[in-house]
């Protein structure tokens, strides 16, 4: 940097710094133009869906807008006993309007997410409310179905009053906010998501571990074999990349099923009795086997690229200094491969944690992961806001893994090749 007293000028009298900046600005602008399409593309297809998802997961205006009067009337209700006549009347008016606009179906779907059993009683109310007389709505509505007289259902409605809520996130970890505003767990037999999260993490962890154990020797071979053999081996490693994921998973199904190739073989060599064929599919085992195979290249490649750079003379030096082959491996070779292990593990773990197709096809009930649950809510229950919430939780989890990794190993220690 030039000081104030000694500004360096270029030959045409402009301060050096200014003209340097001018030149650089032009270069930067050109560089920016080059990446602009990619940036725009990323913004449109990556960032904006995430923002949309975030919005979707907390957006609850549908119910809020459907029952405006009801929620105003409910403000005074303490939530202990059944609400007053005022609330029932407001609800009746709101509901009539919904029927006119044919939006009652949507409301019933939404309320049913909140509490099972709403669907049928709203249908019934719709039928019966045509013949309602003016006044005393509380009695009339309660007479439609006994659940309308159950305070639990009215509490469920009130919970949907805010336009934005994080209740979906609570649901994602099997919790909800009760009347007094406390976070509590749902009943024992309805806790499914927590178990699923734990299973997802567990499977991702073990798949990473298995991949590491299998990839390390392969990568080492690849890095040390003479070129003509290592090329062949490399093709074997990369072959899965050239085959569609679906085909690979399907071939695992052929291999693993009870009447499949592996079982046939085991029976044939007499290791397994015909009536006791191994169950290797539609459970966790299937998920482990198939996912490990499919994610293996993601571990092999970073490891290989790191091992390739380790000079063989280092191992030789270790041995010449008196290190046994094991000590030399453990103290010299292994530490030098850590960047590759880190990169590979991170890659495999992050891919595994969000894996979908393979567990869907071979996982069965006990081998499916959180992403299968997300897909289920997108496709069948149509509870997109819940799916969004879980998707974001997954994303946060991945970022957390990344963060922890950065703290432990340092992201610049990573080597992808």
């Amino acid at each position, binding site marked *: 940097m030039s000081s104030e007293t000694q500004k360096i000028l270029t030959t045409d009298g402009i301060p050096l710094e200014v003209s340097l900046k001018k030149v650089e600005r032009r270069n930067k602008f050109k560089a920016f133009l080059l990446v602009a399409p990619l940036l725009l593309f990323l913004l449109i297809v990556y960032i904006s869906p995430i923002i949309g998802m975030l919005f979707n997961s907390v957006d609850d205006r549908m119910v809020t807008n459907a029952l405006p009067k009801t929620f105003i009337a409910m403000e005074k209700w303490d939530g202990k006993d059944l609400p007053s006549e005022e609330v029932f009347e407001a609800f009746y008016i709101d509901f009539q309007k919904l029927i006119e606009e044919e939006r009652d179906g949507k409301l019933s779907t939404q309320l049913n997410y909140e509490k099972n059993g709403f669907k049928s009683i709203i249908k019934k109310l719709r039928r019966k409310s045509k013949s309602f007389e003016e006044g005393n709505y509380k009695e009339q509505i309660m007479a439609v179905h006994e659940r309308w007289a159950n305070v639990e259902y009215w509490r469920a409605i009130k919970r949907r009053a805010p336009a934005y809520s994080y209740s979906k996130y609570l649901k994602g970890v099997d919790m909800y906010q009760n009347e007094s505003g406390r976070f509590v767990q749902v009943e024992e037999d309805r806790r499914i998501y927590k178990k699923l999260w734990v299973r997802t993490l567990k499977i991702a962890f073990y798949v990473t571990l298995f991949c590491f154990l299998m990839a390390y020797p392969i990568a080492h071979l690849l890095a040390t074999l003479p070129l003509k053999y290592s090329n062949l081996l490399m093709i074997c490693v990369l072959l899965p990349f050239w085959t569609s994921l679906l085909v690979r998973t399907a071939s695992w199904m052929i291999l693993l099923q009870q009447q499949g190739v592996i079982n046939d073989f085991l029976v044939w060599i007499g290791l397994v009795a015909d009536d006791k064929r191994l169950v290797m599919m539609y459970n966790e085992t299937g998920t482990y086997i198939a996912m490990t195979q499919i994610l293996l290249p993601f571990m092999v490649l970073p490891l290989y690229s790191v091992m390739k750079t380790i*000079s063989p*003379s*280092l191992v*030789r*030096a*270790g*041995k*010449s*200094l*008196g*290190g*046994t*082959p094991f*000590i*030399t491996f453990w*103290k*010299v070779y292994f*530490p*030098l491969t850590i960047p590759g292990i880190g990169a590979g593990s991170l890659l495999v773990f992050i891919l595994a944690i969000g894996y979908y197709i393979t567990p869907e096809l071979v996982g069965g009930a006990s081998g499916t992961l959180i992403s299968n649950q997300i897909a289920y809510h997108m496709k069948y229950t149509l509870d997109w806001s819940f799916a969004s919430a879980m998707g974001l939780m997954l994303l946060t989890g991945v970022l957390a893994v990344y963060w922890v990794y950065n703290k432990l190993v340092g992201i610049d220690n990573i080597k992808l090749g």
Partner: protein
Amino acid sequence: MTSLKSFVKFDKVDKSYDGKILVVKDLNLDINEGEFITMLGPSGSGKTTCLMMLAGFETPTNGEIYLDSKPISRIPPHKRGIGMVFQNYALFPHLTVYENLAFPLKVRKFSKDEIDKKVDKALATVSLSGFEKRMPNQLSGGQQQRVAVARSLVFDPQLVLMDEPLGALDKNLRESMQYEIKHIHENIGVTVVYVTHDQSEALTMSSRIAVFNDGKVQQLSSPDKLYEEPVNSFVAEFIGENNTFTGEVIDISAGKCKVKLASGAEIISNPIRVKSKGEKTKVSLRPERAIIDPDEKMENKHKGKIEEIIYHGDHARVRLNLLGNKEFILKIPNSSARMDIKQGNEISVGWKSHDARALDAKSI
């Protein structure tokens, strides 16, 4: 050297990497305990390969190497107790200088105190005290090389192999390191097998020098013999400066031969590699053995024209056109301020027949 026991013995060793070319051919080499042997030779002549076989990282294709009279092929590398400085240093990049040096001591289960002491001492000998905590990539090339030397010596091995350990050092540091290594060698009596490209380094440090070319030891002898009495024209041309005349033997008798050059002139030389008349030969003469204005008794006396004078500080080199050799070099001490040594002048040069060695006609 007349030591009793050969400590390292290469016995008819051949080595081929690809099954097509022998990079080491029929190598026989005896190294005595406490000796400082230098392998000298052009790039690719198989020096590193020899060290690798000795250290156990390459196996001889044929033949056997004996260490302390035991065939070495049965001893795994880590049990040979051979210190080694690799051509590319091979410092462990993830360990500090201290940890690098402590590695061989730790695997030998030395106590922490002993390790500290030995590491301190080793670093002091290569004048790198205070660098313990540096990582190898925070050192200059020369410093890395010195760490590698220190690491190869820190566990007091009986045999140290050094593959161009001083290649990256400047002249001063190189000389002081040569002195250190020599010093260590003399003090602890370690046997050293040393590889270098630097002739003067080889000549000053070694007890014996093995000149390699083409996978073969061309000559193995003490530095003075190597310089004064090269046994073939490769060695003569590879070591030191050398004037050569190519010609044919026309007469040979006890201790003398007459060589006829292409220019028609005849010179009397010392038949080393020629045995009979009609053989082609290259006559080799060291520049300092040629004398200006020789007296009448000198067997060889010829006139040459001065082509160029190159000033070298303490001496000058004079390039002559002599008997058809335009590259004939003479060395003249700076003190002899002779007026007639000027470009274009003719001077008379002579030498003893004993100093003109008639060698084989092969060229490098």
